[in-house]
């Protein structure tokens, strides 16, 4: 691959890898604190999948650049502005319904994303990985949709909490579908799908599920963005101080 192609692939792998790592991190915070014991197993399952995806993507990425020899360097040793994840995934968990709704939005998006990658991506390693990732994210989407319906439809209180979650999440959804310069280039080069091209399928499916949960999808506009450029929320620094604590406190050690 030519250098500009390598840079493009590397950037793409970081974006998806970081989304998965950071949402996996947030999801893992639930372990031991879920509303039922069954959910105490369900949420870590999902966190394991997400962090596992990040690990796989980083390990593809480091093979492209000689300055890295381990995926942990990408996961733990970058500075805040070098993480390229969406703002959506770094937000605090909030209540269970909030966490679930975010997972539903994200995994439904990723389901269509991985499907496209598994069909169209020129980069073989990612194309192959996409098949497995597609199956796992499809399950996440199914699992979370069931809870969105249950909580939206359940009681007056739970419906209110879900309305709250819908409006909490609203400003962050636009970024999912934002075609920036990188998105255009990577689409032209048959690397990744255009984010905006996923919107139609996503919207249809999300609206359908929300409706069953007596909820409505607000109009999606690009409101808050910056994650893809490394401009993060204030809260992200706290997340990194947890994530990176050991690697920063004991540099150059084996674990």
């Amino acid at each position, binding site marked *: 691959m030519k250098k500009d192609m390598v840079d493009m692939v590397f950037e793409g792998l970081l974006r998806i890898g970081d989304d998965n790592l950071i949402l996996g991190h947030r999801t893992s915070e639930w372990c*031991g604190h879920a509303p039922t014991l069954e959910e*105490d197993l369900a949420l*870590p399952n999902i966190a394991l999948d997400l962090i596992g995806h990040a690990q796989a993507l980083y390990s593809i990425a480091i093979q492209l650049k000689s300055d890295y020899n381990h995926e942990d360097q990408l*996961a*733990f040793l970058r500075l805040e502005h070098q993480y390229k994840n969406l703002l959506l995934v770094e937000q605090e968990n909030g209540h269970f319904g909030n966490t679930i709704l975010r997972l539903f939005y994200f995994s439904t998006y990723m389901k269509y994303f991985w499907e496209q990658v598994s069909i169209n991506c020129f980069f073989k390693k990612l194309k192959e990985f996409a098949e497995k990732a597609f199956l796992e994210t499809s399950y996440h989407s199914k699992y979370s949709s069931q809870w969105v319906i*249950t*909580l939206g439809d359940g009681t007056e209180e739970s419906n209110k909490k879900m309305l709250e979650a819908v409006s909490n999440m609203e400003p962050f959804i636009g970024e999912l579908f934002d075609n920036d310069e990188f998105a255009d280039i990577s689409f032209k080069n048959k690397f990744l799908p255009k984010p905006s091209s996923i919107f139609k399928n996503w919207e249809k499916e999300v609206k359908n599920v929300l409706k069953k949960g007596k909820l409505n999808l607000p109009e999606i506009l690009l409101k808050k963005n910056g994650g893809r450029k490394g401009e993060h929320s204030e809260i992200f620094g706290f997340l990194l101080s947890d994530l990176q604590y050991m690697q920063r406190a*004991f540099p150059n050690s084996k674990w």
Partner: protein
Amino acid sequence: MNSDTNNSVNEIPLIEEFQKKIDRDEKIEPKDFMPEAYRKTLIRQIGQHAHSEVVGMLPEGNWITRAPTLKRKLSLLAKVQDEAGHGLYLYCAAETLGKSRLEMTEELLSGKAKYSSIFNYPTPTWADIGAIGWLVDGAAIMNQIPLCRCSYGPYARAMIRICKEESFHQRQGYEIMLTLARGTKDQREMAQRALNRWWWPSVMMFGPSDKDSPNTETSVKWKIKRHTNDELREKFIDAIVPQAKKIGLTIPDKDLKWDKKRNNGLGGYAHGKIDWEEFWKVVKGNGPMNNERISSKKKAWDEGLWVRNAARMHASKNQSTVVAAE
């Protein structure tokens, strides 16, 4: 069935038959006759065991977001999740004896039910995660393997599944300790300090000394306990001491010494005096983390109430639409 603890006269032949069945190593199943005291002892034992699994998620769960590498993060997360599964299997086993999970949960949160005191100690460093896996899961496995053959069918089956899953827990803990012990000076010291913190509480995990453990005899007769506390404790110490030596860590017991007369001449370790006062202090609720553990569980449970209510309500609404459509 008689709900009295005292067995009525016409139950005597049933009780004899029950004991014969156990003596023949047959399993007792939920609908079989069982003396009320057997049922109660089992509910208490399985309940405590289940509570220990779920409270046990907390000290290690603390470190999931801070685990030093992706590999360690994934295995810790999988391990802590396994413990949730263990709690779940055990609650289900207790449920076959007529006690609901809701009741058991409420007893845990109100402080009425006990759980293993070991989880009332804090995990200030990453090395504590290694020490817990190595020592606490190690001790748990010693306790649990004999229970795979216990007389109550659902409990034995849950234990078989649990022991299978446990197989990687102790290994991941020991591997963490080994890596630290071979690491930098800071890492070695961290590992030794964690061993110092967890050694005695782990030794105490097997419960009071046999002479102070009045329930043992009946439990052994009923095969819901197969070895005494001291037997298991000694087996544990004999297994762990050489493992510590191997990685250059020191067991914090200056009276520990090899005694070739033990175990019918096979040899074994004699250990120093156990501080039972400390043990009872923690059991009674005055350990370093008793309040934090329960209040953290209670917070999660209370904050989950709206979710559980919603699930029940959604189900009952659907139920009525299903019925209406039929």
